[in-house]
C-alpha cells in the first residue's frame, strides 16, 4: 500500500519509471519541488475518504525510513483542479514532500497517467470524483480510466441488457431510475451469474441431464408433435423405432431448436450423410495450411483467451517473449503509438524506404 512497503524496488527506480511513463505520454515538463505538509494539503485538497486515515500511523513510521524521499507526490494540474497521487489521505508526517507537478494540456491523458502511476507505486487508484477534475466522464470512459461498470451506469440508454442478465435485475418501474441502494453491484451480479452457471452443470462439468428434472407424465406423442409444429410426422410414429427416435428429438431441446434452424439443419444433414463425421469448417480448412508448430501455439492461446483482446495480448506475449504484455499494457502501447502518430500507414512507408 505504501511506498516503502515495496522493499525490493528503491523509490528512485520507481520515480524513474514514473518519469518514463510521463515522457512516453508526451509530458516532458515536470516541475519538481519540495513542500511541507500544509503546502501539499493546500495543493491537493482535503482527503477524499476519511476512512483511509486509519493507515496514517503505519505510514508515519515508513516516512522516516525513506531518507531523501520523505514522501513522493505526483500532482496533476488540469482545468478543473489538481489530482494528487497518493491522495491527501496519506499526508500525515510533517517534513518534506517531494512534489512533482505535472501540467495537463489533455486532462484525459493525465487521468490515465495518474492511474498508471498509482499502480506503479501500488497506491489506491484515484477516486472517480477526483478524476472528473481532469476530464469529463465520457473521455475517461473512452480511455478506459474508469471501470466499465461506472461507464455503463453513466450511460443507461446505451446499455443493452442481455437476456441472461435480465433475470438478475430487480423489478424496476420504467418511469423512475432505481435508487443507488436498490442497484445490484457488479460483483453481486457476476456472483449470481456464476452460481447460475454452476447450477446448470453437474459435478463433472456436464449439463444436468433431463432425468434430473421432476418427472412428468409421458404425453401422447401425436399430440406432442402437433403442439410442436411437427404434425406431419404423426403417421411415421406408428412404428416403435421411429417413435422412439422422434421422442428423442422432441425431448432434446437443443436438437429440436437445431432442426428448426435452416442452417443447422443443413449441417446436421451433411453430418448424417457423411456417416457422423462433421464437415471441415472454414476455420479448420484455413488452419490446415498453417505450420503445425504455429497451430499448436494458436490453440494454446485460444484455450486461454476470453475474447479477441485477451487473444491479442497473448500474441504480444508470444512475439515479445515477455509476460508483462497484459491487456492494459497492450492498450497503453496502442494508445501511445496513436498519440505518437505511429500507425500502420506510417510504419508501412518507413518499412518501404
Amino acid at each position, binding site marked *: 500500500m505504501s511506498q516503502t512497503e515495496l522493499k525490493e524496488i528503491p523509490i528512485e527506480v520507481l520515480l524513474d519509471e514514473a518519469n518514463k511513463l510521463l515522457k512516453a505520454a508526451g509530458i516532458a515538463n515536470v516541475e519538481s519541488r519540495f513542500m511541507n505538509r500544509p503546502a501539499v494539503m493546500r495543493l491537493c485538497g482535503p482527503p477524499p475518504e476519511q476512512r483511509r486515515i486509519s493507515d496514517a500511523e503505519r505510514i508515519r513510521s515508513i516516512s522516516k525510513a525513506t531518507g531523501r524521499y520523505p514522501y513522493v507526490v505526483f500532482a496533476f494540474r488540469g482545468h478543473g483542479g489538481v489530482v494528487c497521487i497518493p491522495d491527501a489521505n496519506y499526508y500525515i508526517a510533517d517534513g518534506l514532500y517531494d512534489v512533482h507537478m505535472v501540467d495537463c494540456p489533455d486532462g484525459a491523458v493525465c487521468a490515465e497517467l495518474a492511474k498508471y502511476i498509482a499502480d506503479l507505486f501500488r497506491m489506491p487508484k484515484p477516486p472517480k470524483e477526483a478524476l472528473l477534475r481532469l476530464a469529463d466522464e465520457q473521455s475517461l470512459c473512452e480511455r478506459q480510466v474508469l471501470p466499465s461498470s461506472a461507464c455503463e451506469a453513466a450511460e443507461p440508454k446505451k446499455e443493452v441488457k442481455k437476456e441472461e442478465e435480465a433475470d438478475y435485475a430487480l423489478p424496476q418501474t420504467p418511469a423512475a431510475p432505481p435508487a443507488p441502494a436498490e442497484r445490484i453491484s457488479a460483483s453481486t451480479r457476476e456472483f449470481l451469474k*456464476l452460481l*447460475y452457471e454452476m*447450477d446448470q452443470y453437474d459435478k463433472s462439468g456436464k449439463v444436468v441431464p433431463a432425468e434430473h428434472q421432476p418427472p412428468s407424465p409421458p404425453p401422447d406423442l401425436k399430440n406432442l408433435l402437433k403442439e410442436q409444429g411437427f404434425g406431419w410426422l404423426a403417421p411415421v410414429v406408428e412404428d416403435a423405432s421411429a417413435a422412439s427416435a422422434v421422442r428423442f428429438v422432441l425431448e432434446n431441446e437443443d436438437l429440436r431448436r437445431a432442426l428448426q434452424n435452416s442452417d443447422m439443419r443443413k449441417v446436421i444433414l451433411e453430418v448424417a450423410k457423411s456417416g457422423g463425421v462433421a464437415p471441415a469448417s472454414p476455420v479448420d480448412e484455413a488452419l490446415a495450411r498453417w505450420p503445425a508448430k504455429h497451430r499448436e501455439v494458436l490453440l494454446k492461446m485460444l484455450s486461454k483467451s476470453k475474447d479477441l483482446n485477451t487473444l491479442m495480448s497473448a500474441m504480444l506475449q508470444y512475439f515479445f517473449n515477455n509476460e508483462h504484455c497484459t491487456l492494459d499494457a497492450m492498450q497503453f502501447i496502442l494508445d501511445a503509438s496513436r498519440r505518437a502518430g505511429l500507425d500502420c500507414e506510417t510504419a508501412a512507408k518507413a518499412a518501404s524506404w
Partner: protein
Amino acid sequence: MVAVHIPLDALTPSRIRQILIEAAQDKRPSHPCLWFHVIVNMGKNSKRLKEILEEMLKKRLPEEAVKRLLEEAGNEAIIPECVVAEAARRVTLGLINGNRSNWISLDNVKLLVLRYAEKYKCSHEEVDEKAVAEHARILAAYSREWVRLLADGRRAGSSEHMTVAQDVLYSYLRRTRYC
C-alpha cells in the same frame, strides 16, 4: 398445500449454499472469481443477497412458493463460514508462488483480495471494494492464524511483521480444507 413446480434454474438460498459447499469441497468446478465474490457478498451483504434472491424468485414463482423456499432456508447463512474460510485460502493461494521462498506480507488483506480480483479480472466497482475493506478484518483472522502457525522468526517468516515464506504458506494451504 398446492404443489408448485420450482424450476431447476431457480437459485434459492439453500441451493446457493449447497453449490458453494460443493465448490469448496472441489466436488464442482468453480471459476476463480467465485471466491472473490464470496468475500464481497459475505457478512452483512449476504442479507442483501437474500433480498435480491427473494425479488428474483418473486418474478418467476408464485408468492406461496417463494415463501416456502425462504422458510426452507430458515436462518442459515447463504454463505457458510467454512466457505468464507475457503475463499480466504483460495484467494491467497491464487496470489502466491509455491516455488519461491521469499516472504510475503499478509498484513493488508484488502489489498491482497483486490489484487486477486485484478489478476482474474473479476467484475467489481467501488461499492464492492468498500465491502472488501469491511470484510478484510474477518479474513485477517485466518491470515493471522496461518502466520502464527507457520512463521518461525527465521526462514519461514515473522509473525511480528505478519510475513510468511511463500513456499511454506503454499504447501500449508494446499493441504488445508475448510469444508
